Structures are given as structure tokens and as C-alpha cells.
């Protein structure tokens, strides 16, 4: 097994375990409560509107929006970490077939690993801070994943042409 393969497979397995552990924690301690809060705030908003208490209705709607913002990102992080982990493992198994020198394969693998960790991290950090930092992290992470995948596609194409 080459260095790039070890890097991809070990990182992929670690990321899969991390993603699943996060999913388990989230399902046990946060998801049901978040879903309840989301449903309750929207229902409260409509109920207060029916009672013509409009400031309270708008406040409840705001709570709904904030809770949903968090929920979408918390679920996205779980699925993206695990999805990317699987991609790392699959590519790791076959990476020695990529038509690049090993040192270039290591660079591509590193880009993919860093992107796979950083992109979902940026997404989940948006629930902590709505500033530019987390968004920039997510953009950099996804750009790393996209560039690495483009390089890998090129590597397969070069190998296929030989």
C-alpha cells in the first residue's frame, strides 16, 4: 500500500467513525429536541396569529427560522462527513492505479482529506457564528474537494488512454 493510499484509507475510516459517532450523539441528544422546537415554534407562530398577537407570532416565526437554519446544517454535516469518508476509502483502495507519480498522488490525497474535513466543519460552525469565517472555511473545503476530484478524473483519463 502506497503512502497516498494509507492516507486516504486511514483518514476515510477515521472520518466515517467520527461522522457516525456525531450522528449517534445528535440522534440521541439533539435531533428530537430540535425537531420538536422547530414544529412547536411554527405552530405557535400560527396560533398567536389566530389570536391576533402579531409580535409574538413574528417572534415565534423567527425562532422557527433559526432552529431550521441549525437543523439543516447539523444534518448536512453528518451526511457530508460520512459521504466524503466513503469517497476517501474507495479512492484509497484504487489510488495506486492513478496515472501520477506517488508524490503528486500524495498532494491530491492530502487536498481531498483536508477538504473533506474542513468543508463540513465550516458548515457546522455556521451554527455557532454567522460571520464570514465559517462560510470561507466551507468554500475553501469544497473547492479543495472539487479540485482534487478533477485531478483524479484526469488521472483516470490518462491511465485509460495508455
Amino acid at each position, binding site marked *: *500500500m502506497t503512502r497516498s493510499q*494509507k492516507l486516504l*484509507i*486511514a483518514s476515510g*475510516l*477515521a472520518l*466515517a*467513525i467520527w461522522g*457516525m*459517532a456525531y*450522528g*449517534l450523539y445528535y*440522534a*440521541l441528544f439533539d435531533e*428530537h*429536541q430540535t425537531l*420538536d422546537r422547530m*414544529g412547536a415554534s*411554527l*405552530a405557535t*407562530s*400560527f*396560533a*398567536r*396569529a*389566530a*389570536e*391576533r398577537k*402579531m409580535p409574538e*407570532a*413574528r417572534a415565534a*416565526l*423567527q425562532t*422557527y*427560522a433559526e432552529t*431550521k*437554519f441549525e437543523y*439543516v446544517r447539523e444534518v448536512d454535516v453528518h*451526511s457530508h462527513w*460520512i*459521504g466524503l469518508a*466513503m*469517497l476517501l*476509502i*474507495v*479512492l484509497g*483502495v*484504487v489510488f495506486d*492505479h492513478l496515472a501520477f507519480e506517488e508524490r503528486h498522488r500524495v498532494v491530491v490525497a492530502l487536498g481531498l482529506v483536508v477538504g473533506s474535513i474542513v468543508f463540513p466543519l465550516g458548515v457546522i460552525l455556521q451554527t455557532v457564528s454567522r460571520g464570514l469565517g465559517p462560510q470561507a472555511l*466551507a468554500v475553501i473545503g*469544497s*473547492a479543495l*474537494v*472539487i479540485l482534487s*476530484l*478533477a485531478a*483524479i*478524473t484526469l488521472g*483516470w483519463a490518462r491511465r*485509460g488512454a495508455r
Partner: protein
Amino acid sequence: MASNSETLAHASLRSGDGTFAAWSARRLLIIGGIGLIALGMIFGDIFAVFILHQNAARISEALLAATHAIGTQDAHGVLDHFSAIGRFLEHRGTKVDTHAHMIAFGYLALLLALIQPYVALDERRKKQMAMLFLIGAIVLPVSVFLIYYVGLAYSPLETIGWASILADFGGLLVIIACLGQFIGLWRYVRRRRLGEARATSLLEWSWSSRALLVGGTLLVLLGFLYGGYYAAVDLYAHEEGEVTTLRTIIERAAANETTEAERAVDAYGLLQADQAVKIAAHAHIIEFGLLAMLLAFVQPYVFLSERWRRRWVVVLLIGSVVLPVFVFLEIEWGLVAGGIADVGGLLIIIALLGMLVGVLRHTGRLDAEGGEVR
């Protein structure tokens, strides 16, 4: 001309080097993995045809009724309608989760099958880990499916029912099995340093494997590009649009401007549908890319003529493009696009079943050869 690794892979397969023996970890994981993916896809198609659209229509009706209840100042009526919406959402959400987890575990099973030569555990332990993984991979989606029906009956907890607890237990089994694989991999890496471990190449660089690998990587790349575009252009607009539309609904309904409120409810439904199809297109194209890449490794185990192997590969790749593209077009083309997307899903299921038959034929041949030797 075949490369060395190609020749090695073929040779190890023909001789049945033990890594694919009857009830071996790899065989369990490959057959279990393809089975889980095919079942998950069939479940997804049934869900899309018989539940998804009907459920969305019921949610729209309940939201419209809640909007009318605001106009009549019936706060209790509003809560009743929202309670119904909650049930419809749980109905849909648990079905989506069942479909997604079954397929994700199928992928993971194929992945674990691939890395078995690099997992330095004895075969008995590997088999235990594979069984543990498959039990968890079945328990979790089945339990998630039951959440809507079991609810909180006899539950010791306030918000989590028995089906959820069982689903979490299934997830725990999968995590333990993955940790076991990780330990095995770690031991392999350590032994390699000491020069003890050996592994055979897994990839047969045939036309079928190559087409699946290149096609799969391209699909994943396309999915990521589209996901990036969606996050940059649509995600925040959708989130903002949802709140604005809901605010319009409650304010127009409270002002007894029923027509305006009803129009906003329609707009809300369209926004939700637009969001759902865009996310589904992004998720499906990446999933099918991963599936194609995984199946590239399974090709040496598909005991069919090269012509048939190629046919299944082409059918799978066509379905992998058709389904996400036509899911994306559902908003503009309506049910026609939905129907074509379902056909795309069916193509993938047929290709998967075709490959599974090939794998089963391969296992049959290996077992028969083993029997003759004995």
C-alpha cells in the same frame, strides 16, 4: 495486454484464494451490500410513487386549513392542523431516512469488503465484524421505518420511542464493527512495517471496471459542482424565501386577506418542492457516482460474459444520469419528469440485480470447485 496487478487479481479469483470463500467476511459484505442497495432503491422507488407526492399534497392541505383557521381566529384549530402536519412530516422523514440509511450501509458494506485484505484480523473475527455490521445495517433502517407506527408507546423516555432506541442500537453495532475494521487496518499497517502482511490487488483494470470508475468519479465531481452552485446561489435564498413566505401567510390571514394568504401558501409549497428536488438531485448524483466506483471493484466477482457485464455497466450509468437530471426537472416538467426519474431508478435496480446474479454465480462456481477438491 494485461498488467501484472490485473493478472494477479484474475489468478487469485480463479484459484479462490480464500478471501471470497463461503461465509467469508468479504462474501457476506459484498452480497449484503448489493442486497441492501437494491432493497433501498426499490423502497425509494415505492416511496416516490406511492407516498411522496400524496404526502406533500396532504401537508399543503393541512397548511391551507391552518391558514384559514388564522382567519377565523381558531387557535385550537391551528394547533390541530399543525399536529397533522407533524405526523405527515414524520411519516415522510422516517421513510426518507430508511431509504437513505439502507443505501448508505450498502455502500459501506461494499467498502468494507474492499479493504478486507488490509484488515489484519483472523477470519473468524472478520466474519463476526461483518455479521455485526450487517445486523446493525438492517436493524437501523427497519427501526427507523417503524418510528412513525410505534411512536412513544411503552417508552421509558419522554421524546424518544422504542423504535428510535432500537435504531440507535443498530447504529452503535455499525460503529463497533467499523472500529473493529479500523483496528484491523491499524494492525495491518504496523505489520507492513515489520514486513509480515501481504495483500492482493483488488482492481481488475477491465473495460467494465474502468467505465464504472471514470463514470463514478465524474458523477461525484458533477454532484459536488452542482452542490457548490446550490449552496452559493439557492440555499440562503431558499431559507430567506421560506421565512418571508410564512410571514406573508400569517400576516395576510390575520388581516383576513384570504386570497393573498392562499397564494402565499401555494408559493410556500412550490418553494419547498424546488428545495427538495434540488437537494435530491445533488444527493443522488453523488450517491450513484460512489455506487459506480464501488461496483468497479466488484466486477471481478461478477461471473457473466464480458458482453453482459458491459450491458449492466451501461444500464447503471444511464440510470445514474437519468434519475438526478429528471428529479431536477420535476418542478418544470411535472409528473412526466418524475416518471422518467423513476424509470432511471428502475434501470439502476435492474443493473444491480443483474450484477448480484453474476456475484451469486461466482460464489456457486467457487463452492462447487471447493466441493470437488474435497
